[in-house]
């Protein structure tokens, strides 16, 4: 355990140092990421105004709060994608990772966690600028803040697990991009990324409970912007933990079969 803690601390430090080498590139990347929620925010605010100032309980200021928090959750959602799995197998990078006495997934989790630290720091001025222009209605309690802190890191782990499972399909097919596009479409509808889930039809909201997407995206935003009861906040965290455990279990099972398929094509 001590070795793993040391590994995580060292890897995270390394990732932070690495990412600070390119602050401008990281900033442009984040600015690009902000374009999507700004469009959603403007469109939904216009719709709400036309509907008499509110739609499904969301005012333009509530939409602003939702989508500004969205930008941070989206940054936390960036993990090693199936495209990355394709790349590392083709380039032979996975072979080098496999030679280490530590599962490659630890490497991914630690590296991206380090990157998050940089993106969170870079996000703060962006969030302030967005708040200045869009005037969000955001008044979280201390408990909401604490739950949000854990929820965004749990969201990161859920997405890491789900996309790792998807990425491991690469061991059988080499090209997994099409499957990723399908996953992305489902995520867009069932996560709360496109629109707050409470504005979706009932059946979509019910279905979202049974998929990981909501717990990796919509739930963390709602912890800060919604009016969730204490029970719902902890139930949500419980669901996130359940998805992380379930994801880790599936990852370890799939990995056992996947690694037998590994042909080290790229070296």
């Amino acid at each position, binding site marked *: 355990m001590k070795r793993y803690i040391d590994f995580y601390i060292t890897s995270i430090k390394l990732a932070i140092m690495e990412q600070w080498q390119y602050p401008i590139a990281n900033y442009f990347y984040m600015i690009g990421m902000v374009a999507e929620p700004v469009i959603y925010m403007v469109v939904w605010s216009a719709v709400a105004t036309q509907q008499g100032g509110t739609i499904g309980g969301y005012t333009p200021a509530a939409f602003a709060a939702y989508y500004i928090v969205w930008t941070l959750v989206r940054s936390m959602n960036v993990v090693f994608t199936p495209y990355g799995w394709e790349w590392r197998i083709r380039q*032979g990078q996975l072979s080098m990772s*496999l*030679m280490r*006495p530590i599962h490659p997934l630890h490497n991914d989790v630690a590296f991206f966690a380090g990157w998050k630290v940089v993106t969170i720091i870079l996000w703060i001025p962006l969030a302030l600028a967005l708040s200045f222009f869009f005037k969000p209605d955001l008044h979280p309690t201390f408990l909401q803040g604490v739950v949000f802190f854990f929820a965004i890191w749990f969201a990161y782990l859920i997405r890491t697990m789900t996309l790792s499972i998807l990425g491991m399909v690469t061991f059988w097919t080499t090209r997994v991009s099409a499957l990723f596009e399908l996953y992305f479409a489902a995520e867009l509808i069932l996560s709360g990324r496109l629109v707050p889930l409470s504005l979706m039809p009932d059946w979509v909201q019910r279905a979202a409970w049974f998929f990981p997407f909501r717990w990796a995206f919509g739930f963390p935003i709602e912890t800060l912007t919604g009016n969730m009861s204490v029970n719902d906040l902890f139930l949500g965290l419980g669901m996130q933990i359940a998805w992380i455990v379930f994801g880790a279990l599936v990852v370890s099972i799939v990995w056992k079969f996947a690694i037998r398929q590994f042909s080290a094509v790229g070296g």
Partner: protein
Amino acid sequence: MPSVISISKLAKHYQVPEREAGLKAAAKGLFKRTYRNVKAVDGISFDIQPGEVVGFLGPNGAGKTTTLKMLSGLLHPTAGSVSVLGYEPAKRAHDYLRQITLVMGNRNQLSWDLPALDSFDLQRAVYGIPTDEFKRTRDEFIEILDVKDLVKKPVRNLSLGERMKMEIIGALLHKPKILFLDEPTLGLDVTMQKRIRTFIAEYNKRYGATVLLTSHYMADVEALCKRVIVIHHGQLLFDGDLAALVEKFSAFKTVGFNIDDPTQDFSSYGDVVSVDGSRVVMRVPKAKTSAVTSSLLNDLAVDDLTVEATPIEDVIESVFSVKKEAME
């Protein structure tokens, strides 16, 4: 002494999809795929003793890298058995991975944007090396390879050879007992190749490590390996002393001399390989070398007569060609 590496009838076969060129064949392939069974490694056996440095030779596609990948646990064998340090590599036990290393000349594991020192620290954490021991080993390797000024530069600013030195330091910080080196001097200039060879030899001497090395540079093999294993088309062609290989497969010697008239007919002495100014170089059957040199000295006015063994590259080439014919 028990072997540290022992493989028996080891095989790795791949099912490779194949089709004819063209749209029609591509469309047909959507419904019915045809596969070819490729025997990358086809039933090879050998043992390696602790502390040995063995050259693993073969032309491109012979199965060298595939074998190294099976030995290091990256690939599961199709058949046969592998034992390294008493472990089955394919299980990739962490205790096993802590005792080996695989260096591939065209792969890197250092962070591109950071000084190598930072990546070395990650290696410390990965392998759980105690800090004092890590610093001692790191500084020792830095000194042997004379890279004190380079370890603080971002890796992206280093030359290929400098990067390779860093890769090797990073790969050996945990002081592995077994080194699998796949073309470690690939693309490096002669000076850099020599530096890396010296380092590998020094590491072997200091720590008694076992080394299995593939290289297309015969200078690496000559400098480091007493024993060579030659494979071709996945099959073992030769396993023994490098000197015995040269003796067995080197049928010719190279005889060179200076002469005033290099245009005359030398066919009765041997095959002329080249004529450069007054210098003539000939290939002579090994058994006739003494007789030919005597005749040259007696019959002609030759100067600076030299007799050289066939370059090791040519010997290896003749091993491949002789055995290939025997296998076809």
